[in-house]
């Protein structure tokens, strides 16, 4: 199966230039993204040229042809997903970032969209979903793994993430993500590049807004609601 212009009718950027075949340049960032056989197959079937595989965005070389699509593994970068996406966009202007993650959670989706990611694919989804993602983002549209449709619906109904009528802000969501991952305040602070005091403030707001009594309840709530 070959990548072709999608329903939006925008053309796939011409690339490669090898024997006139249209070829999509894909950069893969992350250790696990394409390890499984079916993904390689999916990409091969797409007339895709994986131009490079990097362990992290800091390895991106300046110069050369910008990849049309960058597949960014959410677990690769030791930073919040929105920063990783923004950083990819900055280093590779014009590339369309597709985020790969264990699960497409609310926080991942919202933070990713805000920072300009164009696609979201769960690791467990098959090759067909990846193909669909590539085709969709190349056509200029936004792609969300169908397995995460309920996340899209809930976030639209809540206008983000809401709890007891109160909306959570992006910084609060990032802190919540850290909490749910079992990190201590200092660790969250280091990851987000803010002071421990700031993290503490955010935790306070989260407790107030959600009515949770402690961090453990917050973490449980976030996981149960599929926010993180």
């Amino acid at each position: 199966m070959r990548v072709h212009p999608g329903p939006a009718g925008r053309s796939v950027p011409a690339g490669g230039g090898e024997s006139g075949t249209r070829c999509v340049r894909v950069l893969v960032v992350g250790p696990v993204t394409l390890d499984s056989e079916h993904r390689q197959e999916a990409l091969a079937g797409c007339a895709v040229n994986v131009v490079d595989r990097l362990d992290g965005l800091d390895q991106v070389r300046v110069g050369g042809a910008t990849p049309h699509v960058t597949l960014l593994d959410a677990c690769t970068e030791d930073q919040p997903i929105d920063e990783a996406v923004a950083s990819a966009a900055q280093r590779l202007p014009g590339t369309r970032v597709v985020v790969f993650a264990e699960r497409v959670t609310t926080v991942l989706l919202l933070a990713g969209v805000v920072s300009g990611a164009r696609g979201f694919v769960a690791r467990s989804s098959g090759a067909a979903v990846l193909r669909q993602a590539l085709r969709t983002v190349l056509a200029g549209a936004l792609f969300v793994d169908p397995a995460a449709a309920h996340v899209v619906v809930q976030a639209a109904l809540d206008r983000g993430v809401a709890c007891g009528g109160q909306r959570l802000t992006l910084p609060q969501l990032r802190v919540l993500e850290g909490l749910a991952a079992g990190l201590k305040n200092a660790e969250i602070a280091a990851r987000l590049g803010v002071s421990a005091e700031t993290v503490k403030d955010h935790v306070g707001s989260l407790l107030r807004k959600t009515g949770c009594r402690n961090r453990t309840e917050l973490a449980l709530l976030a996981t149960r609601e599929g926010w993180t």
Partner: protein
Amino acid sequence: MTTVARQQRTRIVVVDDHAVVRAGLVDVLEGWRGFTVVASAGTAAEAMAAVARHRPDVAVVDLKLPDLSGTELCRRLREQEGGPRVLVYTGFSHRDHAVEAFRAGADGFVTKSGDLDLVRRAVLAVASGLAFVDPVLVAGLLDLATEGLRHNGPNGLSMQERRVLERVAQGRTNGQVAGDLGLSPETVRTHLRRAMRKLGATDRQQAALLALKDSPSPSPPAGDPLAPADPGQEGTT
């Protein structure tokens, strides 16, 4: 129309006020393996009766019905004990229609402008308990979801990071910037580090140039810049 429950098949009631659309949809659905249409209806009243009688797995519902809005029909169907999963299939393609339908309890929303395979995937998804969103609506729905989160400027910089970079561009040292903004030098360094990461810059001067070249500098934010950020407010501290 059959009343014999065939196991393993997804049993569907089709609700649409256009006879031709209804007939076409029934044909298409019947043509796919694993689906059977147990009844079709042209009005909400007929739909309620058909659902009560046949207890389908899925109701495929148009939003425009002569006696009741499709959204209201969704609500009534979902209120019923053991009611069907509801897939809205409509000519309306604005996100507000989708939001309204989902709020009323719809499980899926597909516009009539898409190709038929979308309908098949949507019925499969809602029948198995998943949600389904027409791909053409995803961006609109996510716009709505992220409206309140988009306070950061271009490049994903926070207001505070931008303020720091503006002063760096004016040739201020980190210590002076800290004094200007009422921050500790350590916090200023943190803002710079984050901004450089976001911008892919290698030093503070380059970060300042990159940040300010893309957009005119914003008007100073309302309120006292020295005041600590309200944790209830958007903004990265």
